[in-house]
């Protein structure tokens, strides 16, 4: 009896707009599922289905790496605001990647771009933007991303948020491991953070 009838389904009174191809539900009919799916956005190209994830169209990747290179060049010339702007363009382009393309690729690209933009913000002493971007970067790619962990911790330390900084750097250490160059750098930052927090506590006590 566990056999399921393939033709059994709930009929919804849908309406398709022939020009905009948007699908609407007639007369406030409620869809039974608690999580209602997002409205369908049909692909503009007709009669084509998404290609398999691999191999993929290299055009967008080339565009993104071009933008990143120009942003890196601007950063080297100490034009930090310009670099941040270019990184933002590159990030937008990477975020706009079609959904069916490999997620690992998007993760790698976004991790690098966010981390670099964090550095660009830090050079302008914009710590909040820096820490947000560093968090995004480690969200995209937690492992092998020492720079982002370090930058995030540094930004938090600069703002005097010692506890958060310690937590962030310790999480980074857990992911990256204590051995190796990255681990050493993170440990160094951790030491700085500890010192800073002690100083801050002393200052509070002194008052």
């Amino acid at each position: 009896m566990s056999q399921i009838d393939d033709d059994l389904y709930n009929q919804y009174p849908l309406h398709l707009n022939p020009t905009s191809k948007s699908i609407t539900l007639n007369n406030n009919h409620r869809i039974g599922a608690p999580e209602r799916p997002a409205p369908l956005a049909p692909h503009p190209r007709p009669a084509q289905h998404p290609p398999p994830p691999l191999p993929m169209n290299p055009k967008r990747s080339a565009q993104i790496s071009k933008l990143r290179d120009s942003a890196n060049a601007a950063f080297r010339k100490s034009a930090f605001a310009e670099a941040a702007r270019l990184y933002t363009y590159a990030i937008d382009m990477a975020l706009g990647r079609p959904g069916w393309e490999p997620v690992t690729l998007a993760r790698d690209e976004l991790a690098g771009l966010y981390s670099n933009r964090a550095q660009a913000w830090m050079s302008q002493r914009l710590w909040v933007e820096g820490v947000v971007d560093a968090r995004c970067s480690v969200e995209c790619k937690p492992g092998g991303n020492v720079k982002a962990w370090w930058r995030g911790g540094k930004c938090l330390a600069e703002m005097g948020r010692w506890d958060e900084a310690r937590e962030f750097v310790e999480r980074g250490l857990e992911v990256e491991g204590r051995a190796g160059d990255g681990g050493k750098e993170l440990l160094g930052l951790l030491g700085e953070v500890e010192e800073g927090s002690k100083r801050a506590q002393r200052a509070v006590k002194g008052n």
Partner: protein
Amino acid sequence: MVNWITLAVPFAYLGVLLGSLATFSSLYRKRKAMKSFTLEPWFPPHAPRDIYFSLMHLDPTTASPSGGKDKKAPAVPDSVLKAALLRRAIEDIKRVMALRVQKPALAMLLQRGSVGDDLWQRFLRAEKEMEDEVKDVVAEANAYAPGWGQTIFQSANEMLNNAILRERVEKQQAKLQEEKQSWEKKKDGYLKELDAEAAPAAKKPEDSAAPAAAAAAAPVTPTSESASTPATKTPESSGAPPSVAGSEEDDAVLVEAEKGAKK
């Protein structure tokens, strides 16, 4: 003749026995079927699947009331149907993953007797259902474009993961404004603190500068000795300056005052 009567007894016995067994078996099966039929489904209704089928069965005349009969072309374009099919595949992936995660835990609970057999039955039914569903999606995809069935779930998986990633990144970025505001507030607090520290330090040089200036301006007057002494003593008497910058300024003033005194 006698044979028939004596034979009727075992036949009647057999008939009654088989009849009762058959009725019992059919009743039992029916009840079991009813029970499994009334079992609650494991998942809530599959909305993307329902939407897909609703679109498939959309009546062309109701779909385009203005078009009428001259528009015999499919009322729902292929692209929309494909998008709906992809949504369906995404939901399927979510469900299959959920089943895979739940299976070992549920099996263990069942072994220990923590959960009833009903739950296991429901789970098995859901598993079977999903198997059929995945097969159906692959068949549908192959019907749209030969070979798409092999990649549709790959695509759907990437779409799902990409959507999750975007959502997470957006959540982080959404915190930016809030963090910015709190940091501005905090920074203002720091600046005020610094101002408050700097204020007394800034005042002192003025105090000590006045006698120093007086001492410098009136070196010829006989009161110069008495005027310069308070000037040199002011920093010590007013306590240690709290900030380094203040003390440096005081030192400078001291030196000036001393110069003035020497004159």
